[in-house]
C-alpha cells in the first residue's frame, strides 16, 4: 500500500508538532458548512487531527444546515470578535461571509479559504484579503464523473442527474460540470432536486426510473444521496445495468463502489482539505507567503481502485501536492 503522500504527511506533521510545541501554542478558528453530512465531518476530523499533530488548538464551528447562510455568518462574526490568530472558512455561498471576512481583514488576521471559494469580485470590493485558497473545483469533479459515465456507457444512453437543494451553488457546479463532461452519446434527460437527503434521493430516483425505463445511469451530486440512488436502483433490480456515479468519496461510498452498487465516486478528500487548511494557517501565522490557490486532490475511485482508496481513507491513495507542508517546516 504505497500511499506515500499521506504516510509522509503524517510523519512530517508529527515532527512539525514537536517543533511547534516549542513555540507559543497557536489558536485558530474554523467555520465550516453543515453538521449532518459526513463530508463535513471528515473535514472537521482533518482539521482536528492536523491541529493535534502540530500542537495548535482549533475551534471548529459549523452552520446549522447547508442553507443557513446568515447563521454561518453570525458564527463567523461571533468568532471574529475573539483573539484567534488565523481563520479557516468554508463559506456556504460565495458571499455570505463577506462582512465577517472584511472585519478580519481590517484587523489583519490571516484567512484561509477552504473548499468553497469566496467570490473574488465580492472579496475585492469589500477589501477582503485571503491568505490562500485550498479546495477542489466542483465543476472539475463533475466533469470527471461525466467522463467516467461516457467511458462506462460506450454506446451512450439516457442519464439523469440528482442534485442537492434546488439552487444550491455546489450542486449546480457539479451537475454543470457533469453535463460538460459527458460525450455526445450520453444525454441528461432529467434533473431532480433531492435536498441532499438520502431518503428523498431514493424516492426521486425510484420515480425517475419509472419515468425513464431505459435509463442507463445517474449522476448524483453527493455520496450520501448517491447511496440512496444506488438503493433505488437495487430495489428496481437494475444494479450494474444502471450506473450510478456520485461525488465526495466518503467511506460508505467507497465500500459501495467496491461492492459494485456504485459505479464510481469522485473523491474530494475533505480530510486533506481540512489538514491543509490548518497547515496553511500555521504557515501564514509564521509570516510565510502562501500560494494564492492550491488544488486539493481529486481522485476518481472505481472498482479497481476502491481497495486502495478504502485502505487510505480519509486520505487520498495517490500522491498529491501540498505546498504548505514545506512552508511550515
Amino acid at each position, binding site marked *: 500500500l504505497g500511499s506515500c503522500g499521506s504516510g509522509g504527511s503524517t510523519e512530517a506533521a508529527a515532527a512539525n508538532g514537536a517543533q511547534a510545541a516549542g513555540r507559543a501554542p497557536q489558536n485558530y478558528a474554523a467555520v465550516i458548512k453543515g453538521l*449532518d453530512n459526513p463530508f463535513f*465531518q471528515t473535514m472537521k476530523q482533518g482539521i482536528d487531527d492536523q491541529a493535534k499533530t502540530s500542537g495548535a488548538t482549533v475551534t471548529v464551528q459549523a452552520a446549522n444546515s447547508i442553507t443557513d447562510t446568515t447563521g454561518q455568518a453570525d458564527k463567523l462574526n461571533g468568532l471574529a470578535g475573539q483573539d484567534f490568530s488565523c481563520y479557516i472558512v468554508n463559506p456556504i455561498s460565495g458571499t455570505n461571509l463577506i462582512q465577517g471576512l472584511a472585519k478580519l481583514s481590517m484587523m489583519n488576521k490571516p484567512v484561509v479559504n477552504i473548499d468553497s471559494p469566496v467570490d473574488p469580485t465580492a472579496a475585492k470590493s469589500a477589501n477582503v484579503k485571503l491568505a490562500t485558497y485550498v479546495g477542489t473545483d466542483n465543476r472539475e469533479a463533475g466533469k470527471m464523473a461525466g467522463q467516467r459515465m461516457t467511458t462506462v456507457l460506450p454506446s451512450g444512453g439516457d442519464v439523469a442527474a440528482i442534485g442537492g437543494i434546488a439552487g444550491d451553488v455546489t450542486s449546480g457546479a457539479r451537475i454543470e460540470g457533469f453535463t460538460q463532461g459527458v460525450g455526445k452519446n450520453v444525454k441528461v434527460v432529467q*434533473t431532480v432536486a433531492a*435536498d441532499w437527503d438520502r*431518503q428523498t434521493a431514493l424516492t426521486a430516483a*425510484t*420515480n425517475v426510473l419509472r*419515468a425513464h425505463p431505459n435509463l442507463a445511469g445517474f449522476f448524483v451530486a453527493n455520496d*450520501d444521496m448517491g447511496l440512496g440512488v444506488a*438503493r433505488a436502483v437495487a430495489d428496481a433490480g437494475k444494479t450494474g445495468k444502471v450506473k450510478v456515479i456520485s461525488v465526495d468519496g466518503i467511506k460508505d461510498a467507497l465500500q459501495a463502489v467496491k461492492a459494485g452498487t456504485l459505479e464510481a465516486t469522485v473523491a474530494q478528500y475533505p480530510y486533506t482539505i481540512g489538514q491543509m487548511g490548518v497547515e496553511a494557517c500555521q504557515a501564514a501565522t509564521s509570516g510565510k507567503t502562501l500560494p494564492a490557490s492550491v488544488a486539493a486532490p481529486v481522485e476518481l475511485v472505481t472498482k479497481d481502485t476502491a481497495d486502495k482508496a478504502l485502505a487510505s481513507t480519509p486520505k487520498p491513495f495517490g500522491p498529491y501536492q501540498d505546498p504548505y507542508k514545506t512552508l511550515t517546516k
Partner: protein
Amino acid sequence: MTNTTTLRASGGPNWSHRLKDAGFWAEWAALVGLIVLVIVFQTLNPTFLSPGNIASMLVAAAILIILAVGQTFVIATAGIDLSIASVMTLGAVVFGQMYEGGHGLGVASLMAVVSAGVAGAVNGVIVARGRITDFIVTLGMLSAASGLALILSDGKPVTVIDPLLLRLSTSGIGIFGWSFVIAIVVAVVAHVVLFHTRFGTHLLATGGSPESATAMGISTARIKIAVYLISGLLAGIGAILLVGRIGAAEPAANTAFLLNSVAAVVLGGVSLFGGRGTIVGPFFGALLLIALVNGLTLLGVSQFYQPLAVGIVVVLAALLMRFQK
C-alpha cells in the same frame, strides 16, 4: 305537537344531509383531491397507475403516514409536534448504534422505539407539567434530539444491511409492501383508539375545550403526556422503516418530514386548533403529497418548476376543504 317538533330537529342523518355537512367534506377532501390528482396524472402519463409505480408510491408513503398519524393525535389536542422528524432521526441513530454494536434486529428496533418514545414523553411532561406552549417545547426537542443524534453517532451514518429489514420495503402482499401494511395497521389502530375508546373522546375534549374537559374531571395533563408519547413511539416505528428503506442510520435532519407530516394532517381536514380529528383524512393527505411529487417527477417537470407546481396543487387540493366552515 311535541312529537313533530322532535322529528323536525332530530331526524336521522341522511345522505343529502351528509353531503351538506362540513365535517364530511373536511374528512374526505383529501381523498377527493387524491382522486382528481390521480386522474390528471394518469391521463398525462399512463405509467402512473402501473402496479409497479403504485407499489413504490405506497412504500414511499408508509413513513409519512405513520408520522402523520402521530401528528394527528397531537394536533387533535391543539398541540403540534415539531420534533417528530428529529425524534425519528434519533430513533434511527439509536437503531444504528445498537445494530452496529451487534445487538441484532429485535433489540435495535426495540431500543429505537423506546428512545423515540422517551423523547416524546419528555415533550409531553414538559408541556403538561411545565405548562409551556407545545410549539416551544417541541421546537426545543427538535434541536435537542438532532443534537443527541449527532452526539450518539458522532455525525456519521451507519450502514445497516439486514435482509429482514430490507424486505420491509421490497416485498409484501401484492402491491402492498410490508412497510405500507404496517402503516395501514397503525392507521386502523389509531382510528379505533380515537373513536372507540374513552381515551379518544377525552383527547378530543382536551383539544376542543381544555377548561370543560378539566371541569368534567378529565386530567388534561395525562392526555397531553399520552399523545406526545404516542407521537414519539410512532416516530420510533417510522425510524425503523426509514433505516430499512435507505439501508443506513443517518443523523441527517429529515426536516422535510416535519412540514409534510403537519401538511398531511391539515390537508386531511384536521384543524390546528384541536378538538376535531380523523385518521382517514391525514392518511389520504399523506398519500396525496407523495402522489404529487411522484407524478410531477414522472411527468418530467423541471426541478425549478416543481416547487411552484407543488405549491399550487396543495392550495387547490385545500380548496376542496372550503366547505369546512
